[in-house]
Structures are given as structure tokens and as C-alpha cells.
């Protein structure tokens, strides 16, 4: 009989602990930040005008970011995240790293763009957009 009561006590403890844990779990969701902090939505808005400027709906465009420019400092995680978000935003257009395509996206901060523009002068028509974004159209030789 004692064992039964002991077992019932354990069940009660586990259930109460569960309830406490589920409240804690709920509280932990505050780490997600503000409801308006959706990086995907921000990226979609950022890329909207650039996407509209591309002359095709399906195809391949080049992509460079700060990590593509030698000597420029960058945050690896952010750089990787922005690459993924760019592909998501401009789907079904495929992005490939580099500027070998006719149309290329440059996601560069001010210092990186300055370095890039000095080494690539005259090779591209540059269409600037808001938020450090450029569309590069390779000029025919």
C-alpha cells in the first residue's frame, strides 16, 4: 500500500514539474524578439525592386557579398544567412557565387563596394538600390 502511495506521489511530482516546465518553455519564447523582427519578410521587401529590374523570371544570376572581396572584414554567419535569404527571395532565379553571369547581385557594404568598384571599373553597368544592394549588368565587349 505504501508503494502505491509513493508511486502516486511521484506521478504528482512529475506532473507538477511538467506543468512548471511547460510554463518555463513558454516564457523562453521571448528570446525570439519582437514580432516585427522577421528577417525573411525584411529581405523580401529589400529585394523586391531589384527583382523587378531583372529582365527574366527564370535564369541564373551571379552573387557577391562582403566575403567575396579580399581584405574586407565581414561576419561569417551573417554573410551565409544573407546568401540563403537572397536565394529564397529571388526564387525561381538561381544564384551562383561570383560575377561571371550577365546579371549579378552585389550585396556589399560601403567599404566593400568601394574596393570592388576600383578593381572592376568599366566592366559593369551598376544599378544601385537601397540598403547596400547593387545590380551589376556585365557590359558587352
Amino acid at each position, binding site marked *: 500500500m505504501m508503494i502505491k502511495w509513493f*508511486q*502516486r506521489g511521484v506521478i504528482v511530482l*512529475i506532473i507538477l514539474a*511538467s506543468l512548471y516546465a511547460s510554463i518555463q*518553455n513558454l516564457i*523562453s519564447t521571448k528570446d525570439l524578439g519582437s514580432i516585427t523582427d522577421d528577417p*525573411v519578410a525584411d529581405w523580401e521587401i529589400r529585394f523586391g525592386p531589384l527583382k523587378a529590374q531583372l529582365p527574366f523570371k527564370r535564369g541564373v544570376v551571379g552573387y557577391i557579398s562582403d566575403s567575396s572581396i579580399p581584405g574586407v572584414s565581414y561576419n561569417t554567419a551573417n554573410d551565409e544567412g544573407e546568401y540563403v535569404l537572397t536565394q*529564397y527571395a529571388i*526564387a*525561381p532565379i538561381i544564384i551562383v557565387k561570383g560575377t561571371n553571369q550577365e546579371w549579378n547581385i552585389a550585396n556589399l557594404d560601403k567599404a566593400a563596394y568601394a574596393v570592388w568598384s576600383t578593381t572592376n571599373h568599366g566592366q559593369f553597368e551598376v544599378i544601385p538600390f537601397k540598403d547596400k544592394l547593387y545590380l551589376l549588368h556585365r557590359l558587352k565587349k
Partner: protein
Amino acid sequence: MNLLSSIGVFLLGIFTGVLIVHLIWDEEEILALMFKLFLGIGVGLGITSFAYFLSLLFFAGQHFFIYIQVGIFVSVLLISILRGKAINKISFHGIQLTYWQVGLLITVFLTIVFSISGALIVWMHRPSGTWDAYMIYNRTARFVYRDQSNWLQSFSKQIDPYFKADYPLLIPLNIASGWEVIGHETTYVPLVFSGLFIFACTGLFVSAIALTKSIWQAGVGLTILLNTTFFIMNGASQTADVPLSFFILSTVALIYLFVFKQNPRFLILAGITSGLAGWTKNEGILLIITMFVALFISFLKPSPLRPLGLYLTGLIIPLVFIAYFKLFLAPPSDLLSNGVTRSIQQILEWPRYITIFSSYVSHILAFGESALGIIPVLLIYALIFNFSPNKRLLPAYMTILLMVVFQMTGYYIIYLITPNPLDWQLTFSFERVLLPIYLPMLFLFFVLVTDIQVALNFKENKKQSENTV
């Protein structure tokens, strides 16, 4: 309106799935019906993705998938009616509750409310999902939906292998078909899809334990499962881990039911669900192989031929889809992108074994991200209530354990040869890899440990309990 229509687009597929499951297994007891409802959700969404895949192959750009869906549903409904498989009666047991049971029910209810709230918060903050969702599944769905006539370009070799365009298509095709039926792209479709799998996975887990033990055992199991924060958060993040967990859990529960009820049709259903696991994620393809070997070993005596034959019968159609996709459409996987020589070199680097093993131990001990330590709670629970295995069910226990061991071994080998930095790969993938293994292990735990209905002398449903122990 968007939310309601996003729920509506999945209903035809779900009804079709439930009917197909009912056609294969026609039991009408209430717990069996519940189990079939939850199983039918996953099976139905799997069938939807197959149907959409075929419609893309033959009618890309035509945009009449809704008619195909209606046609499939009506056909399955007619077959059900003609074969007399309509549900005629639903049998309930008389339910009388003690204070203990009322307390347990209230706690379970509150845990469910908190879990739903947690998922809602994730959906409100991350309506497009998290990393894997927009890198792989929702991205592929966009590629297919936004230019359906050229949908095969979604698997172009020009796509960076980083984006995993070789991943199976159950999730992206459900999302793309949902958008097609609604007529526009909305974040509600993948969001509802992820919610359906959290719901189905939880329901399947509970109903499987209730069906084989008691609803009280299932209630305790549910509180533990829902306190595994990672399960809810990951599910709401729209990644493939909870859908994969659903199909692995379904396969395991169906094999357990096969031994428990001695009904061979469960193995056919297990074949279907393991095939759908392979159509959900590459790890699911590993499951098809590991489950085959686990079944072979566990049913060696008297003969593994019949169980394997039944399993393969269910598996064959999903396998054809997976094989066609992998052989003719999908770009190469990045797994061997370092080359065979480098992979062999990595296999020979013994420090990698230690790193992976250490990661296995530390991740398993801390698994779940729960404020309630899952492993310590289960250990205490097992010590107090003891295990009471049934000798007759040994092949089922063995199949589940072997499957888990083989899956973990498979992951170990993948970590050995991964072209990505090992620490990075372990940090960002291991907990997600563990989740689909965790659910079958939790199921095994609650069918092995003494039923609280028996241990605590709950009187209701005693007849059922006597059948199970």
C-alpha cells in the same frame, strides 16, 4: 480567410489518407479510429505529394491539380462504400474518473494549451519558418510554384549544393500544391502544414500508447513529449524533422501493433509510412534500409520472409517515387562532394570518432531543451514503476531498438564523411537528427514501463489493461 483556406487545401488529402488507412485496417474501436485519424493525416499528405508530383510530370503548367485531388478522393470514397468499409459504429467505453485521473487530465490539458501557445508564438515571430525551412523546403516550393512549366529547373545542377536541391519532395510539393489550389503564395500554407504534423505526431504518439497500454499511460507520455520544448519549437519552425519523426514513429508503432494484434495489414501500412519517411528527408531513406535489416533480424525465427514481404508491399510505391526522383531528377548530394579519397581519409582520422562520440553523449544527455530534464525524469520514472516487458512482444521491442541503433550508426558514418566542418555540422544538426529517434524511443519506453493504470489500481478500462499486459 487566408488561414482558413490554407487549412482547407489540406483537407481533401487528409480525408483521402484516413479512408485509405481505414480500407487497409477497418477496426472501429474509438482508440483505433483516433490512431487511424492521426495516421491518415500523414499518409494523406504523402499521397497528395505523390499525386502532385505526377501531375507536374504530365500536366505541368495546366493548374488543375484540385480536380485530380477531388477525383482521387471520390474514387477512394466510392471504393470504401462499395467494400462496405464505412464506419458503422463507434464504441466508447463508459468513462468514470477518479480524482487522480481528473487531475492528470487537467494537467495534460494545461500542457497542451501551453504547447499550442508556444507554437503560436513561433509562428507569429517566424511566419516563413527558420533556416532549413526557407533554405530547403519553402525555397523548393517557390521554385516549383512560381514557374510551374519549368519546374524541373528546381533541381538544376547550377543550384549550389548548399541549398540541398536533392532533398525529397513531400514537404515542398504539399506547399506548392496548396499555393496552387488557393491561387497565390501565402506563408499560412507551410505554417498550417507544420501545425498538422505537430498535431498528427502528438496524436499518433498518444493514441498508439493508449491503444496498446492505457489512456492514463498515454497521458503521462503526452506531458513528457510536450515538455520536450525542442519538439514543439522545431515543428513550428517548418523544418522536416517533425514530419520525419511522424513517419518514423508511425512505422515503429505499426510494427508494434503488428506483433501486438497479429494483424499482417499493419506491416503493409508500416511499409507505406517508412517509404513516406524516405520521401520526406534523406534520413528517411536510411530508415527504409535500417528498418528492413531490423525486421529481418527480429523476425529471423521462424522466418523473416512473410514480415519482409508485407513490409515491401507497402513500401514499393513510395520507393518507386523516391528512386525516380533520385535517379532522374535530383542533382548530386553534397555528401560526397569532397571526393571518395577525402571521405576515406576522414574515415581513417580517429579523432573524428572521439569528437562524434562525445557529441552523441553530450547531446543525448541534454536533449529536448526542456526545463524538465527528460532523461533524469524518465530514469526516475523507470526506477519507481519498473519495466514490465511482455515476452510475446519481444520481436517488436527488438525491431525498434535495432532500428534506433542502426540509424545512429548511419548518422555516425555520415558525420565521419561529411564535407562540412565537423564541429559546425554536429552543433547545427545533431539535435535535429536526434528528434526522429527520440519519439520511437519514448514510445518504446512507455510501452515497456509498467502501465500506471495497473500500478495505481485505476479501475476503468480494466478489461483493456488485462489484454495488454
